[in-house]
């Protein structure tokens, strides 16, 4: 990994993104590697862009995540995509990731506040938006005697239904012509 020149000032370097020179990838016949200054590009955009490459490439990360990370890209299908194209795609994704992370970070306090308020609504500290949102109690697991009796009645009705079905089957096919081989075997076995 390349070492960077130490700055005389100990304060973090403020590098305006628009003034950054585009990272230059190192290319070999099978792999591209890009060295990225984390203070300039941000850790999240680098990791985000690396994650997005996983459909096309095996991605390796090395280095110090507080200083410089080297992203290695090796194509999953070397015939379909060349290292140079992989590096170009990664760098394009990195620029997009910077925009997405900028929007996310700019709005972090807004999102946190909304989440807090939503939790307060859920807790009942703030009135719920509509009565429909209130959950009914789960059905009682204990059944009344009447309900139990009705279930028993239902089951006896099912049994009657099964008997009717079987009788109908015999009536429409008394010789058992439509019976499957297994049913015939069973009948013969019973006989």
């Amino acid at each position: 990994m390349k070492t960077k020149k130490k700055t005389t000032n100990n304060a973090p370097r403020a590098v305006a993104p628009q003034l950054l020179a585009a990272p230059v990838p190192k290319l070999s016949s099978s792999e591209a590697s890009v060295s990225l200054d984390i203070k300039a590009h941000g850790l999240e955009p680098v990791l985000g862009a690396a994650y997005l490459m996983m459909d096309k490439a095996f991605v390796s990360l090395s280095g110090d995540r507080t200083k410089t990370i080297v992203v290695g890209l090796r194509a999953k299908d070397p015939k379909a995509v060349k290292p140079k194209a992989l590096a170009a795609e990664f760098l394009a994704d990195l620029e997009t990731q910077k925009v997405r992370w900028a929007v996310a970070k700019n709005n972090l306090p807004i999102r946190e506040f909304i989440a807090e308020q939503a939790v307060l609504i859920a807790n009942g500290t703030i009135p719920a938006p509509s009565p429909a949102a209130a959950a009914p109690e789960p059905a009682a697991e204990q059944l009344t005697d009447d309900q139990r009796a009705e279930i028993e009645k239902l089951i006896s009705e099912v049994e009657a239904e099964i008997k009717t079905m079987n009788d109908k089957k015999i009536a429409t096919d008394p010789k058992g012509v439509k019976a499957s081989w297994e049913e015939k075997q069973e009948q013969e076995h019973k006989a």
Partner: protein
Amino acid sequence: MSRLTGYAAPPKARPGAAAPHQYRLLGKKVLITDEHGRWALMTPAEHKRLLSGLKPSDPLWTSIQARGFVAGAFDFDAAARRQFERGLLSWKGPASHALALDGMTLETARAVVEFVFRCPGPQLTLELVFVDASSVWPVLWFIVQYARRKGEWSRRPVFLIARGAAMTPDQVDFLRSHGVTRAATLALDGAPDMKKAPPFRAQRARAVLLPGAVRPREWAEWFEKWGFESVRLLPSELDAEGASRFGAFHGELLDWLVEHAEDTNLRDEWATAFLAGRTWRLPGVDLLEQLAYDARGRVFTSEESAAAGAPVLGEAGELRYQDLAKIEAASAVIAASHADNQPQCSQCAYRSYCTVAPSINQKLQGHYWGLTPDSAACAWQMGILDRFFGRLDDEKWLLLLSKWHVDMG
């Protein structure tokens, strides 16, 4: 395979300008969405203006501010209410319960129905799945009757769906008279024979798209002709090729629906499922939307996991609903299905509409978490949503959505 989109020359985002949002390039348009299901379509130039700070004099300001995308004029109360309503904070329990009836005994059926009714939630849907209704008729008959009574006793609406490949006219009559929706399991291959009727009279079609399926418009006419009210297309193979074939077919079917927006009664079930803006209502999302039960009464996180045989959450006769939270597999699937936990989903414009069911990730990639950039399921769902959102500036599409009670306001 499934990718976020990006500008060739990304614009700069000025702090305090745009409210939280994600964006996606759809052709020449840019779709922006927030995490509570609000959206706007604009040009790249307009998006650039939003990111750098819209002035109140800007013609875009009124409409974009009303939709909650201007940070300086943000309605926090409305956003909090939407987060509560559309987020997991208002989740009431799995609403859909899929019961595999083939081979199920009456005793098991009773235990399963009783478990379903121990789940909280304002309403319950029981989807009764079988191949041939005749082979499971006593159990099907019993569940319909018992679930109806349980619904009355617990004073909760109960929706019953009988889904199978075969049913006699008598069985159809019984189910219709008991308010049971009939869903036909179909496999679409080649072009439709308009004269050939479906296996039974059903309101819904769950149609698996075989590789040979062609002429989507004619299939739409076939569904319409035979009285289907909705269709849910499914790819036969969930790989890159299957997702692409599905996309072409589904796109043409949608075109037909849009062209016949005023007179068709056919509905695309994916539109109503995705655009409702509650990811835990997407069909088949493990535990959050669905629980599934096999013929032995074992409880699974979804039909997909029931088909795979794991993870088993317990036996319907013994498991207590409140104990689900203690099961590690249950926690894992819930964590895996949340967009904030998935690097690509958290930045996706469809984050408030979509999630890949963890059991699908398990099936395709070997783990619940999944790797979205490489996921055919993610590509498939992203494709569906691209087709829906790409049409949002089409009046006919909006008319169709409003007909389907999808509020995209």
